[in-house]
């Protein structure tokens, strides 16, 4: 499973992209984020407030209860500010 971080999530975790293999108990985005927090202090800080994070699963916007599976591309980012 590939996890992408953008904007301040990328800065705080210190990575733009990482390949992870969470345990089978991780079935949705919220559970994935909880598991990712244990990867280090940067991850714990970046991911502490789930309500501040927006999600895309395989490049489609998703909610935190969306299912995740091996092979998926999960992106975590703050609300968007384009235009």
């Amino acid at each position, binding site marked *: 499973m590939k996890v992408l971080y953008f904007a301040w999530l990328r800065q705080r975790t210190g990575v733009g992209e990482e390949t992870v293999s969470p345990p089978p108990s991780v079935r949705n985005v919220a559970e994935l984020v909880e598991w990712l927090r244990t990867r280090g202090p940067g991850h714990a800080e970046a991911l502490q407030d789930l309500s501040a994070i927006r999600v*895309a699963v395989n490049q489609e916007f998703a909610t935190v209860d969306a299912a995740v599976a091996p092979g998926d591309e999960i992106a975590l980012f703050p609300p968007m500010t384009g*235009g």
Partner: protein
Amino acid sequence: MAVRVQREDFDPGLEIQALTAGDTSIGGVASFIGLVRDMAGGDSAGAMTLEHYPGMTEKMLGEIEAEARRRWPLQASLIVHRYGRLEPGDRIVLVVTASAHRAAALEACHFLIDWLKTKAPFWKLEETGGGDARWVDARSGDDAATERWSQPRRKDAAE
């Protein structure tokens, strides 16, 4: 029907000319050009860096454009969005819509820029001087502007 995400600047006149050339059924062209506004008050700061999600950005812009074409009878449309470091006064985004009549072109252009602000994965990092920078917060006014278009308009309203 085109979407481009690029680091380079664009020439609005040339883009409009290229988009509409050869289609004499077009009676009206609307465009929106977004510029970097100087938020630092003339300070040397005020530049920003736009980050995006390559792949998803193009996909979302394409979906937003397709939605506009479902709602309005457009002969042609174009979205160009830049990324990378931009200075105050620089162009960020171009939206062009062309239709037989002005109402469809104007409404579709307005719709596209409103939707793009909340649905395309871009993030602005603003330089605040002294080597510092901060991520720009999303504005609730942008969500309201998007929400305004949640009811699809009737296509024939523009005829």
